[in-house]
């Protein structure tokens, strides 16, 4: 599964994208964030306040309880500041 990171989530993790294979117990976006958080300091820093992290599955906004089964790409980013 492909993960994408944007803005300060990208900067804190230190990469824009990566391929990961989370264990089958990781069912939701929230589970995935918790699992990623344990992968290192950068991840822990990026996800230190998981409530403000936004996520998208295949370019659609989703909530933390969204299931990740079948996802092509999952993106994590801060609240949007466009316009």
């Amino acid at each position, binding site marked *: 599964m492909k993960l994408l990171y*944007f*803005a300060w989530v990208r900067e804190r993790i230190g990469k824009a994208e990566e391929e990961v294979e989370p264990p089958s117990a990781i069912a939701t976006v929230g589970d995935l964030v918790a699992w990623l958080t344990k992968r290192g300091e950068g991840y822990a820093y990026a996800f230190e306040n998981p409530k403000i992290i936004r996520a998208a599955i295949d370019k659609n906004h989703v909530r933390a309880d969204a299931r990740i089964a079948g996802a092509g790409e999952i993106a994590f*980013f801060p609240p*949007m500041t*466009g*316009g």
Partner: protein
Amino acid sequence: MIATIRLQAEAFDVGAEVEKLTRGRTDIGAVVTFTGICRADEAGEPIAALTLEHYPGMAEAEIARHVEEANARWPLLGVTVIHRHGRIAPGENIVLVVTASSHREAAFAAAAFLMDYLKTRAPFWKQVEQASGRIWVEAKATDDAAAERWSAPPPRRDAAK
């Protein structure tokens, strides 16, 4: 309804975009444009420039969804949305929304609606260059509140033609 959505690094020309949307039409009675411009300050501190990062593919899709939503809510005849990315200096334009309708109420409401959604839902992130370094702009609670006001059922009222 004719919709044009463009993400680009280059500046845009407001007059040219209005002209493109209205040329040869005699059914359009009202055109509203909103242009967002880079100010020389952010949260009271001077900035040298801002840089806009975006999520390619998702940004276009999100904007297209909201243009469709606007078209379902108001009787629109044309919509143009242009959003720049990359480095933008103070005084340069950032974002353009143009809405056309037979009457003014729909054009005004749709432009305000699209801007509120671009501010809160389209995947763009602003970073500013200040004396203290490069800083990611924080999302504003007031922008979320502005977007929230559209979550009531669509009005589609005929008032104020």
